[in-house]
């Protein structure tokens, strides 16, 4: 790992020099409408119904359209459905479908296709997991589809707006099985602005424009088919290789630009675009039931002992904002983010020292760490090695270094996914760190739900009290956005008082492109959306 950071600093400079020497391809107008995009992650499984990974969304959104669309303000617009209504308790939803939509294979969109697309979740022998809100559904007539929920679900429209439940053509659902759809994007026959035409596993996916496309988002910059005639998504895991390809002119845009390289890439004349993530930003839930962090004074001392602003600023060079609560500010429903928490605590090593003394950590061992009854104050920070991105391991190291000043030992353990989840489940840790993207505050509810202990939920702080036990389910099911906002603000305040989760930073998915590229947009979760509006300026 270390080696890569050194490289990260040296190579871009060389590459940029090289690109400048070659005359700056970036300023040459490009009239071709073939768009080469370098993505960092290749979907392990293209079927978003089977494999949930936000990075897959970027690929899938090109191919499929959701029933309902959500804009970046959290408002809902027609997608494949023109209108929808629910019964009084919000358990039965009726969707009216557009009558002018065709799938990539020419089949007309029908309620039957929508029904079949959902039926595969509950089919006999299916390896897909039906969402917990799904009770049943049926096609009422050719253009009306009815969804019955197990319980009122406040964010049901948001759920249907993301690509987790792809609407596919009836013929393709018969022709291909779930395994085909997972392995081969060409088996996903959707209605989206681009049609997958060639997939070369481990290398690239080629998409062609859907010339019949007349059902783009209302909030898009244009109507009709996409501007680009062809999109080539190459899967390039190494950030420095992506940067090299961009600066040498062989790529039009690249995904996941490391913040460290952002200045250099910008100075070389390339354009950066990004959108802050929604949902739960990168946060560190502290174990509130076991180990030293079960004592709130230890949790508060840790929060005071670290200069979080400095950590985030140093690692991300000002490209990412520091987080104050476990809810990202732009998450719907609008207003849920509690701005009052900003600035409510600060870097205060003295306060940390007195809190730790109060908690009984009065002695120091020969390495300078605090001890209590001869036991060193050690906090184990576990992370899922496969999920380390964005230099999150460097963040952990920076926190570790600052905590050491306060006499707190943090040990960092990088585990494989399975071992990590096992440790979380058995409550064998003091600190974890995660981010959970979702364009609705419901995911923040999941992360604070007293009933949501691992493995069934993501309340990794394990904090529970009677208020939260009432607030979280109410916020998840209430049909009244104002009530939800009020509840989510209360939950944030409680988390802040209890220091059950330490917020760290709000990630932003940075896309760098040639300056001739226009119209890269982001979905409400903060990932690049379909390349529907993208074009080359002349």
């Amino acid at each position, binding site marked *: 790992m270390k080696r890569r950071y050194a490289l990260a600093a040296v190579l871009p400079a060389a590459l940029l020099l090289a690109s400048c020497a070659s005359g700056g391809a970036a300023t040459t107008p490009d009239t071709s409408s073939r768009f080469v995009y370098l993505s960092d992650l290749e979907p*392990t*499984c293209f079927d978003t119904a089977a494999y949930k990974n936000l990075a897959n969304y970027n690929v899938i959104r090109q191919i499929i359209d959701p029933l309902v669309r959500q804009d970046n303000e959290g408002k809902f617009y027609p997608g494949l459905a023109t209108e929808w209504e629910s019964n009084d308790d919000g358990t039965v939803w009726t969707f009216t479908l557009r009558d002018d939509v065709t799938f990539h294979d020419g089949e007309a969109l029908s309620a039957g296709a929508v029904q079949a697309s959902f039926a595969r979740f509950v089919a006999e022998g299916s390896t897909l997991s039906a969402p917990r809100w799904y009770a049943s559904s049926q096609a009422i007539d050719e253009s009306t589809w009815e969804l019955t929920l197990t319980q009122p679900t406040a964010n049901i429209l948001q759920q249907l707006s993301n690509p987790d439940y792809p609407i596919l053509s009836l013929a393709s659902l018969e022709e291909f099985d779930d395994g085909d759809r997972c392995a081969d994007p060409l088996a996903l026959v959707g209605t989206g602005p681009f049609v997958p035409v060639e997939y*070369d596993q*481990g290398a*690239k996916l080629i998409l062609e424009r859907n010339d019949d496309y007349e059902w783009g988002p209302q909030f898009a910059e244009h109507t009709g088919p996409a501007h680009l005639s062809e999109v080539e998504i190459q*899967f390039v895991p190494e950030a420095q*290789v992506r940067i*090299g390809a961009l600066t040498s002119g062989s790529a039009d845009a690249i995904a996941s630009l490391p913040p460290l390289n952002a200045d250099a890439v910008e100075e070389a004349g390339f354009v950066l675009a990004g959108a802050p993530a929604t949902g739960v930003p990168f946060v560190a839930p502290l174990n509130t039931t076991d180990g030293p962090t079960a004592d709130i004074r230890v949790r508060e001392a840790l929060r005071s002992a670290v200069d979080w602003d400095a950590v985030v600023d140093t690692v991300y060079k000002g490209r990412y904002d520091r987080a104050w609560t476990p809810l990202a500010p732009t998450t719907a429903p609008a207003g849920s983010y509690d701005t009052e928490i900003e600035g409510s605590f600060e870097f205060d090593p003295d306060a940390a020292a007195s809190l730790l003394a109060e908690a009984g950590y009065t002695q120091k061992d020969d390495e300078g760490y605090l001890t209590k009854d001869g036991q060193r104050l050690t906090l184990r920070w576990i992370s899922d090695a496969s999920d380390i991105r964005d230099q999150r391991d460097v963040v952990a190291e920076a926190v570790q270094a600052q905590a050491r000043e306060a006499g707190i030992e943090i040990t960092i353990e990088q585990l494989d996914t*399975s071992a990590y989840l096992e440790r979380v489940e058995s409550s064998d840790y003091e600190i974890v760190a995660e981010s959970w993207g979702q364009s609705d505050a419901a995911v923040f509810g999941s992360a604070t739900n007293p009933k949501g202990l691992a493995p069934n939920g993501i309340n990794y702080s394990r904090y529970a009290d009677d208020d939260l036990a009432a607030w979280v389910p109410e916020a998840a099911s209430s049909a009244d956005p104002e009530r939800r906002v009020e509840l989510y603000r209360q939950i944030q305040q409680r988390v802040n008082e209890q220091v059950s989760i330490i917020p760290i930073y709000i990630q932003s998915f940075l896309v760098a492109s040639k300056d001739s590229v226009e119209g890269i947009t982001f979905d409400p979760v903060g990932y690049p959306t379909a390349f529907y509006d993208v074009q080359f300026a002349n």
Partner: protein
Amino acid sequence: MADTLIAAPPSTEPLAPRSAESSRARGAAVAIRFARARAIDIVLVMLAAATLSFVTLQLMPGNPVDTILRGTFEITPEMRADVASAYGLDEPVWLQYIHYIGGLLTGDLGSSYQQRKPVTEIIAAALPPTAALAAFAMALAIVFALVGALVSAGRGRVARFVAQGLELVAIAVPSFWIGLILLSAFAFAIPLFPSTGADGFASLVLPALTLSLPLAGVLGQILRERLDETLEQPHTLTARTRGAGTARIRVRHGLRHSVIPALTVSGAIVGSLLVGTTVIETLFSRPGVGRVLLNAVMSKDAPVIMGVVIFSAILLVTFNLVVDIIYSVLDPRVRLGAGA
């Protein structure tokens, strides 16, 4: 394999002519016996690899159901039960093992948890680009090593010093670095080759070159040292007195002796090629077995990990078999099956 090599250690003595009385029939019988013994070897190694990887994955902490459901924020016990039964994870471990071995014997390696398709298909699809990469890298490594050894051996201190230096650099500098430098030079600064993908020969050049350098370093070291030794042997002098030219002596007499020790490490080299492709395929965004393995390990996709392990084991055994045969051709004192 190692047994044959121990039975007949490489030597710098002159090679004896092949024994005249060795009859054709006896040769055939030996070859059949040898083939049968090796077929059994392959099956045993496969079973051992399967068992070992199965046990290892079982011993590792964590429940595969959690791994499969990772990314779902709210999970009900029913969802977990569904997943467990869909993947046969609700069966007792011993039964899972028997099913796995039973499948293995019929060529079925199970299905990937994440990609949800048969592991054999995944490996088969990833194999051609990796095979092309490994073969080309191997060929390059051999050419570099041979040229380096022939040019530098017995040419005095300076040549040796330069050759040793280059070999050490090739071995010691991480492939990742070499690859990035080659990329910045020949894909970005001077766009001669593509930086990503596996489309045709051009895309093979930089990754194969990167992969070949450490191998060339190791092979070159062995070849050159042995060549140096051989050139000082009396039989080389004899050849020279018979009027053989320098080039002829180096190639016909020196090299033949030097190739044998190089062959003995080639099994290890194939192993390192497999490991090396993981880094190279990621750096150059190439499809292949290495990248499949890396992704599988990251997501703990047990069937794919086991599949790649078993496949690699079979590959190594097969490769060693081929080396044994080549070895017996190069050095007639080595008999197939000797020492087995």
